[in-house]
């Protein structure tokens, strides 16, 4: 790659940092290599937890898939904790990416409080530059009404960004054909719990379908489905379903995440008992959680507030005023 055209990455990279990084990395490599050479090889017998899971999957749980049995059955408590780790990550993304104004949707909420701001605080004028950048941002976010719905009528080969919301008719048709197939197959991955699959891959597939719809049709079309009121409620409902499933085991059977549902024959949809129920809860949790995470990052608004010299150092718990601010 041409170095002179990428000033931030390549040009100002100091040499000593490279050597120091190399030395530290090599040290880690030696340590890791020594550790991994002592790891069990492919000839070692399976650990007893694995053999237990394999042997009990079919007779005890009527499940043909030991991985699902491990995930939702015998190590269900582990997955329970992982689920809430996921939930914590999603909550922190929501907190970190939140806009200043009260949130209504994932897209365009940065302009939601503008009118109220004008009424409440008319003195706070925005200068010309900020207005221009805000206008550019609004145009970029697709909030203007002058843009066409789709780019099909636009002359071919016009340079510059598209004003349209969605992609061309060819792409939209392909997505219309492919997305339902993929969504149905994602649900099949969960329901067909005795082949590879379950809540985690199914949820990831649902996220993929949502992103496809977003890329193909534009944010206005999916804003009805992908809004915080719906997604976050669904996520909490999934979490409640998981907690309820596990606690009912404690009440009815006497052990947390014990099976309290009748087991059907292997190879049918009810074969796993609570494993399938947990899997459905996990599908909701993973699908909505990852969607909230991705849409949250997508909906980060621009920070157009003008720079004020030394502002950061004042807020910065009384450390010495910096000279670096002048460089900007």
């Amino acid at each position, binding site marked *: 790659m041409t170095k002179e055209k990428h*000033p931030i*990455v390549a040009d100002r990279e100091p040499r000593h940092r490279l050597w120091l990084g190399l030395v530290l990395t090599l040290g880690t490599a030696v340590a890791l290599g020594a550790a991994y050479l002592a790891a069990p090889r492919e000839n070692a017998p399976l650990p007893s937890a694995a053999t237990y899971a394999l042997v009990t999957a079919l007779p005890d749980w009527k499940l043909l898939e030991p991985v699902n049995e491990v995930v939702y059955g015998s190590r269900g408590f582990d997955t329970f904790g992982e689920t809430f780790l996921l939930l914590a990550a999603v909550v922190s993304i929501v907190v970190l990416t939140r806009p200043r104004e009260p949130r209504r949707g994932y897209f365009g909420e940065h302009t939601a409080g503008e009118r109220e701001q004008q009424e409440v605080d008319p003195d706070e004028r925005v200068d010309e530059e900020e207005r221009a950048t805000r206008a550019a941002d609004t145009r970029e976010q697709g909030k203007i009404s002058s843009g066409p719905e789709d780019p099909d009528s636009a002359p071919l080969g016009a340079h510059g960004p598209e004003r349209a919301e969605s992609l061309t008719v060819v792409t939209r048709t392909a997505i219309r054909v492919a997305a339902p197939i993929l969504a149905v197959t994602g649900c099949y991955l969960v329901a067909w719990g005795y082949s*590879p699959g379950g809540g985690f891959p199914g949820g990831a597939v649902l996220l*993929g379908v949502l992103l496809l719809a977003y890329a193909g049709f534009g944010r206005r079309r999916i804003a009805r489905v992908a809004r915080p009121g719906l997604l976050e409620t669904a996520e909490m409902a999934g979490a409640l379903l998981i907690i309820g499933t596990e606690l009912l085991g404690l009440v009815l059977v006497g052990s947390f995440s014990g099976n309290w549902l009748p087991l059907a024959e292997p190879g049918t949809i009810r074969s796993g008992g609570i494993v399938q129920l947990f899997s459905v809860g996990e599908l909701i949790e993973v699908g909505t959680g990852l969607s909230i995470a991705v849409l949250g990052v997508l909906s980060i608004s621009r920070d157009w507030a003008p720079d004020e010299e030394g502002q950061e150092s004042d807020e910065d718990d009384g450390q010495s005023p910096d000279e670096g601010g002048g460089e900007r």
Partner: protein
Amino acid sequence: MTEFWIIDYLVLALILGSAVLVIRIPNLPGATMALSAVGTFLSLLFVILGAPDDAHSEVVVGAIALPVLYLAAIAKVRADVLDEGELREEGEQDDEGEASDRR
């Protein structure tokens, strides 16, 4: 059994090559693409090592979810923080002159 090891090492080479590309490619969308390649080849390796569940997850995550996250972050950053030299590729930069000629 030798076929298994051949294909295993081949895919390992693919993964490591893509991982080196992630570090070597200076512009961020290109590096994101190399990261997506790492995910794709990892899922191929998961199938070879007999873990179809992990492969299912890794395909979707590596091919769509992670690239979209990175692309969104890059897009959020670049309009007001970065100069365009960081994110443009040389071909597009050359085109600037050409495009204005076309007008």
